């Protein structure tokens, strides 16, 4: 009986959401003036008692804007409302669902379909991966829909909306890392697992500043001299501003997973420059994540992190919105710097008074997962070796694609 009412309820809800979305979509179509945040002129952030602009709140940081722009949009930064509508109809703006009530062989069929429609390289073992369908969506996805922008990509510079190619140095390093990886199983010990599974960092900066569907909210709490960003995966970014923000960065030998940030105010905009990222080359399974999530949760940053300079700009463009912009400069990793923009919105759930802080992310204490993975690899090491090799193979194809991109860039005279 219940079932009968589910479908209409959902369609109604979906329709309502769609209407809400278009109502909320920023009036786009025109690019903002260079270097100026959209809406900045129309809004002045409130001031805290000690004079700093007020960025505080529970911020929903999810976005459905793709990282890189689809070819069809060319150099267009914004899509039309018509195009946005089409994307919505195609389902590109819905929260991921793994609700298909299927197990076993049926899941394999879904997997094949997913790969067929994917731009990710096939792993050569159709049906083996069931990622995305192994959990029913209710376990992981916030059922609400994030607000949308008409942006065609998060990347706004280079103008083609694509992350620039990796350098040869980065690609060589990648190859070297994977060669080392080949001699190990999926989980010979904990270092064979990614940083997220080891409860160290999730995806690393800056990628982690985008929210995922499980933990979409970041909380900003300010105090005199500091802007603190409570990250949902169990740690706080404490960013010194004012006098503390003027202090020189740590010495080169000191490296941290989330780097060493320094903040300053440019008008209402918080500008954060972060250096001293952890050099990840030494680890067998390296990676602090960076802008890329690697295959199978083994997150790779394309270089060592030692030359990465991350510059973030937070601007409250109206009461409910922060424009979040970052620029990645790392000559060892990318052939040129690049910049992205996304919008953070005040979290609707918190606005309704249902939450005023994040659920404690006490990851280590109940991390049965890492134990299960290591035990699993010991029960059947041959299979764990096989699985690790498969992961490396997938990355081999990813790397080949990156090399092609680099060659194309070089052939075009570095443009």
């Amino acid at each position: 009986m219940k079932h009968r009412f589910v479908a209409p309820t959902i369609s109604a809800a979906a329709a309502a959401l769609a209407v809400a979305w278009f109502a909320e979509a920023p009036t786009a179509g025109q690019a903002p003036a260079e270097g100026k945040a959209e809406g900045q002129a129309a809004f002045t952030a409130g001031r805290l008692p000690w004079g700093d602009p007020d960025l505080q709140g529970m911020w929903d940081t999810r976005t459905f804007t793709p990282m890189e722009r689809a070819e069809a949009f060319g150099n267009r930064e914004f899509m039309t409302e018509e195009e946005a509508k089409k994307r919505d109809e195609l389902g590109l703006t819905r929260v991921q669902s793994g609700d298909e009530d299927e197990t076993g062989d049926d899941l394999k069929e879904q997997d094949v379909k997913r790969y067929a429609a994917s731009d990710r390289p096939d792993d050569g073992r159709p049906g083996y991966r069931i990622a995305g369908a192994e959990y029913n969506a209710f376990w992981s996805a916030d059922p609400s829909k994030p607000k949308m922008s008409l942006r065609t990509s998060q990347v706004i510079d280079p103008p083609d909306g694509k992350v620039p190619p990796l350098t040869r140095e980065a690609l060589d390093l990648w190859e070297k890392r994977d060669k080392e990886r080949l001699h190990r199983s999926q989980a010979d010990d904990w270092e064979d697992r990614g940083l997220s599974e080891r409860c160290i960092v999730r995806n690393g900066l800056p990628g982690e500043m985008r929210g995922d569907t499980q933990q979409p909210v970041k909380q900003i709490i300010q105090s005199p001299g500091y802007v603190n960003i409570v990250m949902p995966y169990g740690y706080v970014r404490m960013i010194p501003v004012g006098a503390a923000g003027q202090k020189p960065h740590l010495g080169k030998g000191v490296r941290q997973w989330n780097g060493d940030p320094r903040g300053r105010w440019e008008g209402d905009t918080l500008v954060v420059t972060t250096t001293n990222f952890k050099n990840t080359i030494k680890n067998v399974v390296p990676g602090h994540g960076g802008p890329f999530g690697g295959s199978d949760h083994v997150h790779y940053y394309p270089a060592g992190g030692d030359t990465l300079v991350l510059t973030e700009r937070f601007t409250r463009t109206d009461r409910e919105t922060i424009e979040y912009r970052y620029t990645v400069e790392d000559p060892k990793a990318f052939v040129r710097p690049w910049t992205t923009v996304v919008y953070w919105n005040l979290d609707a759930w918190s606005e309704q008074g249902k939450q005023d802080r994040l659920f404690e992310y006490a990851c280590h204490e109940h991390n049965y997962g890492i134990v299960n993975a290591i035990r699993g690899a010991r029960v059947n090491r041959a299979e764990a070796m096989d699985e690790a090799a498969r992961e490396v193979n997938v990355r081999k194809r990813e790397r080949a694609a990156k090399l092609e991109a680099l060659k194309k860039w070089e052939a075009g005279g570095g443009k």
Partner: protein
Amino acid sequence: MRIKMIAGGIVLGTVLMFAGQALAHHAFSAEFDAKKPIQLKGKVIKMEWVNPHTWIHVDVNGTRWMVEGGPPNSLLRRGFTKASLKPGTEVFVEGFQAKDRSNKANGRDVTFADGSKLFLGSSGTGAPKDGRDPTER
């Protein structure tokens, strides 16, 4: 088949977009065995409300099984509270067994004794019809 059609059209695109983002905390393939689908019927002993994953302990004919679920944050936002799955509740769990063959599994679907699916009745779950309810046909 009908389910596949629903799922196929709507879900595909987004799954791809969020691949890697919306996945669980760990790599499923390292911990659980995709070739070992499992079905468990038993009574809830307790539920651990912890990150990175909740765990439901289920008594299956005198054997304790641990079933992995999603993180507390998303469950709370689904309207799932500590009262949703009380000790003693009879549940039917479908998922995949741990690779080490211990009595652990991930819980993909959790169904109550009367056949209703956890959360199916709450609004906005996005859950399609699953064909199990005879009144649905």
